[in-house]
């Protein structure tokens, strides 16, 4: 009896939240969110060993080859990670940082790859929380780069957190649909990595090996995008602000802006584990202690590329966000930082251009030619 009622409550909670969630979302075609991928049509992806920017020594090894399956399932040819590893070692380049410094043109020449995936490990921590339990958090940044042009095709920032506690988390969003981990198993870094990977690449356009039925046929499929734009007034775009914790620099205002799917929050996995995830730009939540990290820097071709996590970037690398049926471009500085202002109405950006989502020119559906 108690088992049944427990299950029912879970189910109802899930359905209920699922319903309310739909009301605030706008359906945005994948063609807008992934314009560059549809244009470049990469067939093969070279995944380089993850670059560990944390103090956890073994993060790169544990993260290992977890991405291979996720990307392959989406129809991309992923170079066999173990062999790629051995290949680099045989060339006396075994360090992820050295590998990261290899120019993309060289990688393209050696591997004949269409795209290169750079993974940055930004957090890999276990935190003890007195009285409550402990939490494990993995934050990863993924940067998919066109191997011929060096252009960033997509960038994702994903955080997955597992907390051990006795509380009963609410359930929203994805019920681990694409995740092939036994949910009863204890949550470890390996599992969290897989979840982060799945989360980040869940909506990537279908690649060549998904077959004719899918490949390039998902360009008009839509993804629900949530917004937290408060108002648009005289060229100013106001967004909801959040209260941040003490580790946010005081000179920066914190804000939450348009996002997308809440991929899973408070996902109940076993008697004591609660998982929460988010994913930017497809995520609308800023969790307090992360609010200071608006920007992601990624070392590409020897240059640190700075991008705002909460914005999407168009073909000309101009940052924009989506609010309902509007595509809103905002002012940014030459270093890539976005101009943030504040007045009595709250935090705002300067709007430079506004488009309707219907006016967005989707890339042609033409399939990539055989090599």
């Amino acid at each position, binding site marked *: *009896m108690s088992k*049944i*009622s427990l299950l*029912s409550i879970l*189910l*109802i909670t899930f*359905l*209920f939240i*699922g*319903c309310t969630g*739909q009301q605030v979302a706008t*359906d945005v075609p994948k063609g807008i969110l992934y314009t560059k991928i549809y244009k470049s049509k990469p*067939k*093969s992806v070279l995944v380089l060993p993850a670059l560990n920017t944390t103090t956890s020594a073994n993060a790169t*090894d*544990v993260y*290992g*080859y*977890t991405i*291979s*399956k996720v990307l*392959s*399932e*989406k*129809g*991309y*040819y*992923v*170079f*066999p*990670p*173990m*062999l*790629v590893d*051995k*290949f680099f070692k*045989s060339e006396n380049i075994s360090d992820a940082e050295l590998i990261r410094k290899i120019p993309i043109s060289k990688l393209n*020449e*050696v*591997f*004949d*790859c*269409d795209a290169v995936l750079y993974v940055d490990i930004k957090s890999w921590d276990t935190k003890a929380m007195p009285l409550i339990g402990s939490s494990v958090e993995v934050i990863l940044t993924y940067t998919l780069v066109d191997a011929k042009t060096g252009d960033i095709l997509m960038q994702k920032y994903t955080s997955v957190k597992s907390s051990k506690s006795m509380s009963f988390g609410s359930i929203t969003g994805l019920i681990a*649909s*694409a995740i*092939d981990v036994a949910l009863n198993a204890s949550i470890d870094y*390996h599992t969290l990595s*897989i979840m982060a990977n799945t989360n980040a690449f869940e909506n990537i356009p*279908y690649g060549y*090996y*998904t*077959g004719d039925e*899918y490949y390039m046929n998902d360009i008009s*499929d*839509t993804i629900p995008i949530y917004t937290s734009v408060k108002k648009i007034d005289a060229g100013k775009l106001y967004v909801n602000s959040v209260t941040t914790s003490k580790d946010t620099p005081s000179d920066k205002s914190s804000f939450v802006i348009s996002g997308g799917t809440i991929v899973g929050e408070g996902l109940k996995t076993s008697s004591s584990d609660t998982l929460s995830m988010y994913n930017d730009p497809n995520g609308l939540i800023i969790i307090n202690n992360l609010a200071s990290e608006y920007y992601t820097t990624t070392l590409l071709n020897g240059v640190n590329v700075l991008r705002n996590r909460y914005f999407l970037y168009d073909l000309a690398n101009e940052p924009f966000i989506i609010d309902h049926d509007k595509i809103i471009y905002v002012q940014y500085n030459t270093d890539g930082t976005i101009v943030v202002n504040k007045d009595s109405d709250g935090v705002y950006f300067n709007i430079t251009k506004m488009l309707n989502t219907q006016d967005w020119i989707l890339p042609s559906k033409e399939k990539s030619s055989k*090599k």
Partner: protein
Amino acid sequence: MKQYIHLLSIIVALFITGCANDNIKPPKEPTYEWCEYTIKSGDYGLNEANSEKFEQYKEELKKVIDKANETKKRIPPGICAEYGYMLYQSGKSESAREYFDKEVLLYPESKRFMKQFVEKLYGKASTTQTKESHIKDKK
């Protein structure tokens, strides 16, 4: 108890109908059969010196290949190449070579990389037959 369940199923049914959305496409079927590849490769990756993990991973790769043949699906990317390398390390360099070739056959994208990898293991002379096509590729 029974009544309770009845009531519950009605409530649940109501919620489901309320949420029904015609735009939701059925999820795509998995492109490949992976068995326990991710877990086993992770295990092996962290314990490359452990001969038991080595064998387990090798077996798992074979299982993925067999499963693909059984279900008439394509073998996932990289699996043949990795299995070939496991065979090579077990001293079966001849059958290893077959799997390296199979990777290229299934996924022509891997051609340039696999050629270089094979040359590292078997020496440059081993790939002379395909040398011309390689040069053509580079152009």
